[in-house]
């Protein structure tokens, strides 16, 4: 409260620049009046308005004025500081002014864009600007704190996005640690049959990438591992990774498969979406990487030779070890790419479609397995209930997507295309079968997408019906589908042998726990939030974290790969810097006022504050301090003051905002 006001000694010369932002601000806020009123405000030496402050002439005006009028602090009243704070800091630097003497008064997003009453909005703008003047009068010159960078990256998720990101970063010349929670890398893409719009085989194009990643000298592959915790900050993260026991030594296993033959436990096969079975000791799929068996302890009879032990008995290589334990691996990295993928929305949520009740109502991924040559039917289209070849299949789009009322309000983006592919593939495999697609809109905006969709309609004679299905139920061995054709205005009923639901894409199961550990922001649907929806699409708001793939939102494969490469390039940007800059707006301690009570130490989440036992005061590690200010608010003596946001600055701002 009583920290010395260093800036008080000499009155500052502050310049004010009010931006019109074309008409974005000036149509609601009387910008000329704002500049005029502030002219005589204490501390203000110069005040003007201009149509675009962020333009070159605008910035030049700021630079020139700083030099001409010998300004030692400026306010730019414009848009949100998240947009142009850096621009104006740079301009100030060019004029020889310390960048921390710049204040951005947000009179666009938080004023002109949310109000219509001109008089009130102008009054509000004046108050906002005044508060920043009050603060600027007490701003100090600050120098950024410099920190080293650990040039290793962590990639979380071994699907196509994680593989691509890991490969690109490694090719840039940096080490990568790739963590995958499942026994093998490959993700969802390895489960797909063919890919739109070219119909090339998904496995055939992904497996070479998987092999390449596993053999890359700079990639450390940690499958069946999960990230336990992350601490530190951009450039200097410490990661704890949990190694789940595989109970099979992957360096010894020679894939003879004897263990699998003798295992008595039968479990639904995840790789085939539960449409077939595997044993408790299994290899997820033939091309799995690493090539080793994994013992699924949850379904094993008990990891105990007395109870079963059959697999251990037959293993010539002595690769099976029931006593394997969880271990923790610690790694230091400078950047983290989050590529945790997606899951499909549960069919249970749509009771009216009977997905939970009827075996022959399947989701898109299940149908991928049915179409796939490596799938449970060897690539023949047979329905799950009785193995018959379905003579008519109904495909329902937007199952759980675009539903603001009960399900997901967003478009899942890829369903239109994969449904077209499904229908087309089915028609190729069952030439006398009928494929009917119920759709609301067909969104085929990608490269060669619309041609692909038209091919399904024109060449493969897939019947597209514009309308959403209301209900699906079983009568005899047929599934009755009630829909509508809104183009003719007819209610339609279809007797189908099988139904494929294009379920919405949702955040990956259980990913929220991981994201909490990473402390990285998501949108309301649990997808990762990007730093800026247009200009920073692959970075998280949290420095040092990068996004790739469907963890960020529904995407097709080319987009996922492009985003993964972009994230890798961004990691390269980070690693190319000699040192990182840490914001100096931290909370140091005024030794004269500190009583050594230690309250601030308990407040600090980063262990940046420690007690110096000899002097009886708290000392601060400024590199660890992130500048949240929780300690400053708790300090009873006022010894802890946040740089350029001291208590006195806050009080002055409040007075300027509220007094008049």
């Amino acid at each position, binding site marked *: 409260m009583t920290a010395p006001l260093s800036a008080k000694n000499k009155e500052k010369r502050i310049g004010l620049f009010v931006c019109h932002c074309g008409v974005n601000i000036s149509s609601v806020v009387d910008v000329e009046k704002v500049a005029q009123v502030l002219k005589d405000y204490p501390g203000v030496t110069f005040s003007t308005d201009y149509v675009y402050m962020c333009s070159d002439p605008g910035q030049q005006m700021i630079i020139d004025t700083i030099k001409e009028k010998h300004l030692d602090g400026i306010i730019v009243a414009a848009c949100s500081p998240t947009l142009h704070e850096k621009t104006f800091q740079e301009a100030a630097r060019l004029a020889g002014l310390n960048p921390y003497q710049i204040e951005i008064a947000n009179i666009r997003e938080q004023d002109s864009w949310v109000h219509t009453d001109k008089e009130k909005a102008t009054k509000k703008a004046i108050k906002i600007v005044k508060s920043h003047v009050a603060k600027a009068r007490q701003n100090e010159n600050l120098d950024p704190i410099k920190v080293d960078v650990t040039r290793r990256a962590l990639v979380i998720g071994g699907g196509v996005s994680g593989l691509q990101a890991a490969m690109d970063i490694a090719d840039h010349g940096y080490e990568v640690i790739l963590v995958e929670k499942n026994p093998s890398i490959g993700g969802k893409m390895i489960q797909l049959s063919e890919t739109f719009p070219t119909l090339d085989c998904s496995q055939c194009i992904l497996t070479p990438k998987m092999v390449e990643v596993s053999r890359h000298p700079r990639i450390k592959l940690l499958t069946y591992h999960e990230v336990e915790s992350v601490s530190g900050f951009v450039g200097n993260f410490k990661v704890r990774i949990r190694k789940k026991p595989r109970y099979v030594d992957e360096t010894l296993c020679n894939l003879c498969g004897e263990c699998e033959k003798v295992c008595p436990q039968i479990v639904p096969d995840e790789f085939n979406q539960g449409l077939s079975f595997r044993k408790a000791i299994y290899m997820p799929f033939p091309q799995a990487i690493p090539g080793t068996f994994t013992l699924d302890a949850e379904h094993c009879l008990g990891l105990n030779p007395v109870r079963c032990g059959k697999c251990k008995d037959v293993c010539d290589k002595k690769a099976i070890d029931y006593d394997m334990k969880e271990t923790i691996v610690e790694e230091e990295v400078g950047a983290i790419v989050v590529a945790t993928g997606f899951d499909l929305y549960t069919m249970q949520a*749509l*009771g009216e479609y*009977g997905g939970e009740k009827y075996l022959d109502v399947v989701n898109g991924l299940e149908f991928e397995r049915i179409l796939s040559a490596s799938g449970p039917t060897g690539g023949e289209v047979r329905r799950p209930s009785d193995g018959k070849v379905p003579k008519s299949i109904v495909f329902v789009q937007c199952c759980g997507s675009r539903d603001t009322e009960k399900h997901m309000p967003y478009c899942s983006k890829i369903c239109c295309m994969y449904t077209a592919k499904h229908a087309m593939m089915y028609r190729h495999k069952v030439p006398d079968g009928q494929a009917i697609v119920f759709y609301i809109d067909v969104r085929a905006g990608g490269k060669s997408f619309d041609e692909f969709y038209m091919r399904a309609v024109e060449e493969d004679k897939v019947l597209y019906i514009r309308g959403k299905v209301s209900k699906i139920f079983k*009568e005899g061995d047929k599934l009755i589908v009630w829909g509508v054709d809104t183009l003719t205005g007819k209610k339609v009923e279809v007797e189908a042998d099988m139904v494929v639901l294009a379920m919405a894409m949702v955040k990956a199961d259980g990913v929220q726990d991981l994201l909490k550990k990473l402390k990285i922001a998501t949108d309301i649907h649990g997808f990762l939030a990007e730093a800026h929806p247009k200009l920073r699409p692959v970075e998280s708001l949290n420095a040092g974290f990068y996004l790739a793939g469907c963890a960020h939102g529904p995407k097709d494969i080319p987009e996922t790969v492009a985003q993964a490469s972009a994230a890798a390039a961004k990691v390269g940007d980070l690693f190319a810097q000699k040192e990182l800059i840490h914001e100096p707006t931290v909370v140091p301690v005024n030794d004269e006022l500190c009583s050594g009570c230690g309250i601030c130490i308990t407040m600090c989440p980063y262990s940046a504050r420690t007690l110096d036992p000899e002097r009886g005061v708290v000392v601060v590690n400024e590199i660890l301090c992130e500048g949240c200010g929780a300690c400053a608010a708790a300090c009873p003596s006022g010894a802890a003051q946040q740089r350029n946001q001291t208590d006195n600055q806050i009080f002055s701002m409040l007075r300027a905002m509220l007094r008049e």
Partner: protein
Amino acid sequence: MKLHYYPGCTLKQKTTALDISTREAMRRLDVELVEPEGWTCCGAEYPLTEEKIVGLAAPIRTLRQVREEGGDVVVTTCSFCYSVLKRANKAIQDDPLKHKRVNAYLRDDIQIDPLTKERTTDFADYNGEVKVLHLLEYLRDTVGYPKIRERITRDFRGLPVAAYYGCRLLRPQKEMAFDEPDSPHVFEDFLEAVGCAAVDYPFKQECCGSYLSVSLPDAATEASYRVLRSAKMNGAKAITVTCPLCFYNMDHRQEAIKAAYLDFSGLPVLFFTQILAWALGVDKELLGLGEHTVPAAALFSERPSTEVRS
């Protein structure tokens, strides 16, 4: 214990079977049903436009009477009454304008003292204090199916019965659903609790034709036929309903259905309370089986056919 019970107009006139069986069954469960003094018809249809506020007066007046008599819960069996009472109650709770206007209409109403029969006109505003429950909801949550199972004295021996929800019991979902809206099971659970085997069939929530029965009898015939056919195809020996109108459409209309659809051979329609009452030991004569067009008495026999629960 005493429980407020709103029978509604139809149960007092044309469908006394539902009323009588409800009373008898509840008596066996130690619940005495009390009708609110001076209740009137609820209006049958909840007014769906914002301006027909006057339609809320009748149901609210009845609910207020329940409150005046010290009741905090009222149960109904008719789905239409249930829908109107519950939605009107919710409207009073949520919409200040409706609250104000309906209470203004009703302020000068006549109040009848239950003991002295004295009439007064001084009313405090009704704010939605009474909870409106369907009897199924009450049986599930307050009585509890385990208790019903304990009290059962007669066994249906797994008679396959289809539960018919119809339109009003769980819809509109936002206001009405007291069970999973698209795959409900409260009615099935009830049937299992009284010893029947609940038949799963896809038409349990389809419309029976409702009031179009009068203006478009053929449409109602077809709608009812589809429900009955689906239940029968899935093995039902009877279908149960909660609503007198569903009963009318499915039971009284069966002659017309048989005439129009030659593949249909008839299916008895029962009220859920008839099943409950008989299982609890109520005499068959008290079930009102005489009101049925499709003979149903054979289902209530001490030695039911050869059906054995699997």
